[in-house]
């Protein structure tokens, strides 16, 4: 009999048992009958079973494709492969749907069919999508490897990951070059992604698996201008709006902060550069409204400091920040420019252009809000990579303001660095590249 825990343990599927059944090697009739029953009733077992149909042919195909993938990047790569890589394989959701559209990503179905028949990369990614589909239909966790993949992945997976990451990287570079942010909004490029960094990363990805992780880390640490080492350990991060340092188009109507690890009541002060108190308020909630009168008293084109203290520890600033409301003429010009951009053709290019203009003007709060929303919209591929890089750029700019000559808030500077690092790690993850900053 099959041990009970083998049949019910959701963490580890009894791969070898099902393989033995597939090979006709289960000698005990009762054991065979149990597996037959599971295959008849359990979607989980059916998904694993389906994954090993024609196992010997699948193995030969996987072995050959693995060999082809090892030299795949040496020759010309069809654009459709870059599209697959950029989507992280999600494009197959459309291609393999019951009613696929006539065209997907600008190529008709016949072209995609032909690619599958002739291209090892496309084939392997489609098979991966097939497995995802089987898992989804059976209600399995994405982490549960199907038997067929558990057995055969070693032939092709390392090469497939390498090719996917490299192609996604190429695509991201091309996109960033096509977008041409600097031409539209002169000044440092918010994406900070160029051919030199691309070359270093591609070399790192080509390293043997055992050395790849270190090579990627070195490439990012040495060559990525968005890589910032956090000086010190970040204590509990307190988020704030407006973000800890920013320029604003108009005075803020509210200041908010996070209070997960601390409780009010709170005392809030807003001061100008001469330490004149513009607002002093007490509140039980982690936010304070700024009345029209106070807004009208906030000077333009000058730094304004705000700080929040908890009444339980009044000697310690809970969180603080600085904003600077742009002068009216500049604010009006920028508002017009941003409206123009917003009416352009929707897409990553437009969205990043808006972020670039906001960033260049020091509107970090607006840029961060805009980019964080875009991160929810773009969850894989080159677009997602670029959006997250831009977010990292924005938080790094905040950090520079806080910890540079202004020396305004060491803790807040550290938090901004932490956010920037998270965004950068997340950016690389969008390309399938695992990279983590050392704590």
């Amino acid at each position, binding site marked *: 009999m099959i041990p009970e825990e083998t049949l019910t343990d959701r963490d*580890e599927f009894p*791969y*070898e048992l099902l*393989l*033995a059944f597939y*090979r006709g*090697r289960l*000698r005990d009739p009762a054991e065979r009958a149990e597996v037959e029953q599971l295959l008849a009733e359990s979607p989980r077992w059916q998904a694993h079973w389906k994954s090993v*149909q*024609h*196992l*010997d*042919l*699948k*193995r*030969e*195909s996987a072995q*050959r494709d693995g060999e082809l993938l090892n030299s795949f990047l040496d020759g010309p790569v069809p654009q459709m492969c870059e599209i697959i890589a950029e989507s992280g394989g999600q494009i197959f959701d459309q*291609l*393999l749907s*019951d009613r*696929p559209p006539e065209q997907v990503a600008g190529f008709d179905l016949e072209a995609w*069919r032909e690619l*599958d*028949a002739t291209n090892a990369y496309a*084939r392997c990614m*489609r*098979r991966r999508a*097939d497995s995802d589909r089987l898992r989804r239909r059976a209600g399995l966790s994405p982490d549960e*490897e199907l038997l067929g993949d*558990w*057995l*055969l*992945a*070693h032939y092709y997976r390392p090469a497939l990951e390498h090719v996917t990451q490299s192609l996604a990287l190429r695509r991201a570079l091309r996109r960033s070059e096509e977008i041409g942010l600097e031409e539209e909004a002169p000044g440092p490029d918010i994406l900070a992604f160029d051919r030199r960094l691309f070359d270093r990363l591609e070399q790192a990805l080509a390293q*043997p698996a*055992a050395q790849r992780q270190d090579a990627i880390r070195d490439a990012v640490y040495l060559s990525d201008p968005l890589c910032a080492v956090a000086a010190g350990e970040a204590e509990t991060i307190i988020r704030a709006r407006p973000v800890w340092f920013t320029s604003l188009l108009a005075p803020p109507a509210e200041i908010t902060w996070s209070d997960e690890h601390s409780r009010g009541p709170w005392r809030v002060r807003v001061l100008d550069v001469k330490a004149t108190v513009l607002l002093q308020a007490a509140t039980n909630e982690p936010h304070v409204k700024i009345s029209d009168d106070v807004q009208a008293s906030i000077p333009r084109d000058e730094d304004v400091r705000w700080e929040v203290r908890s009444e339980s520890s009044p000697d310690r600033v809970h969180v603080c920040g600085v904003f600077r409301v742009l002068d009216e003429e500049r604010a009006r010009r920028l508002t017009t420019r941003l409206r123009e951009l917003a009416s352009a053709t929707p897409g990553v290019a437009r969205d990043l252009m808006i972020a670039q203009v906001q960033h260049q003007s020091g509107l970090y709060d607006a840029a961060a809000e805009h980019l964080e929303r875009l991160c929810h919209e773009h969850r894989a591929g080159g677009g997602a990579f670029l959006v997250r890089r831009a977010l990292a750029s924005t938080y790094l700019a905040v950090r520079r303001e806080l910890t540079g000559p202004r020396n305004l808030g060491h803790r807040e500077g550290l938090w901004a660095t932490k956010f920037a690092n998270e965004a950068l790690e997340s950016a690389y993850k969008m390309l399938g590249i695992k990279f983590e900053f050392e704590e």
Partner: protein
Amino acid sequence: MDRNIAPAPAGLLTDLRDALGTGKVLSLTKCEDVAWGFVACNVVLELAELFASLAERSDQLVAGDITYGRLYDSLFGEDDRARHDMVEVLAAEEATSIRGSHPWSCIHRWLALDPIVSRPQAPDAKSPPQIAKEIFLEALACDLSAEMCRGRSKSAVEQFDRWWEKAAAVLRDFGDELRRLLQDGVAGLAPRLGDLSPVTVRRFFVQEALSKWLKENQMGQTITALTVKKNDQLQFCISGQNAGLERPKDVPGGWTIDVYDKLESAESRGENFEFKAEHLQMLLKVLAWIEKHGLAELHGVRLPNLKRIAEESPPVTAFFNDPEKQFSLAAVMYEWDEMAMMLRMRRLPRDWADYPQVSDVFAHPPMRDFGFAAWRKKAIAAGLDRNGQA
């Protein structure tokens, strides 16, 4: 490349073992994976187990009714005669009770004993290397007709000798280290490992030290070289068993896979597949070859759909998910798999996976008695982790 002796993923090992059972052989890279990720691990685990059991004078049985305690007393006692008698008794017990089920366990045990027992005095008495080599030479005994399947190739025997010489030398050097570890090392290690029993601590420590020792002495490379030779021999055996039965002429090597890829792609998209004239031409050739050599009867396979498709005029459609139609894609793919199996296996028996020729490459027991996932868990629990930082 610098590698560690550490358990390979269970999926990889299961697949390679399964692949060998379907008439495939290993690539050089996969030989390395098996050697470092499985065979060398077993050498470490089995030697460590034996040394620890000996040091503990355990009541567990070595062979027949001989316990480790009795073996220890004989091997480390004052009486030379008793030592040599024990070697003979152990060899005789093994021949009746163990040999045949897992020859490589016996070989590993004799390897461990070699540095401990001195060379025999009596002219007809056998030494551990001689006994081990006999086991090695006899391990492939079977009913296969090809001579190169039943005996060892010259190069495999030579590599075995080199492996033995190297491994025995490593273990001789290891002797002093082992003594130090068993006597002094455990006391320092025990507090770190908390509540583990002294027996567990000692085994763990012996294993760690042994793994490191074997790695430093490049045992992995020597074991890889032997695995490669055994794999080569398997290739020769398959060729010998299929002598005179070459693959059908004019059918390219990767043809069955090329067509399978297209069939699978159609199935994935829920589309029909169209066999064109060039497909049918090749299919006819393969089916004629199978017929000519009686392979369908030998393997108990029928290919009714493929035969009818081959006789039709092109194009012939295999229909996805439409049982009303003449040719269903699922049935065609099933038969395609069977056809490819005959091209690969040819005259190899269907229970090829259970032949000692196959299990010999992995140096482990027959397939039906083995589970790589459980083995890997035990190996990791015993201290051989993926980082191999032993």
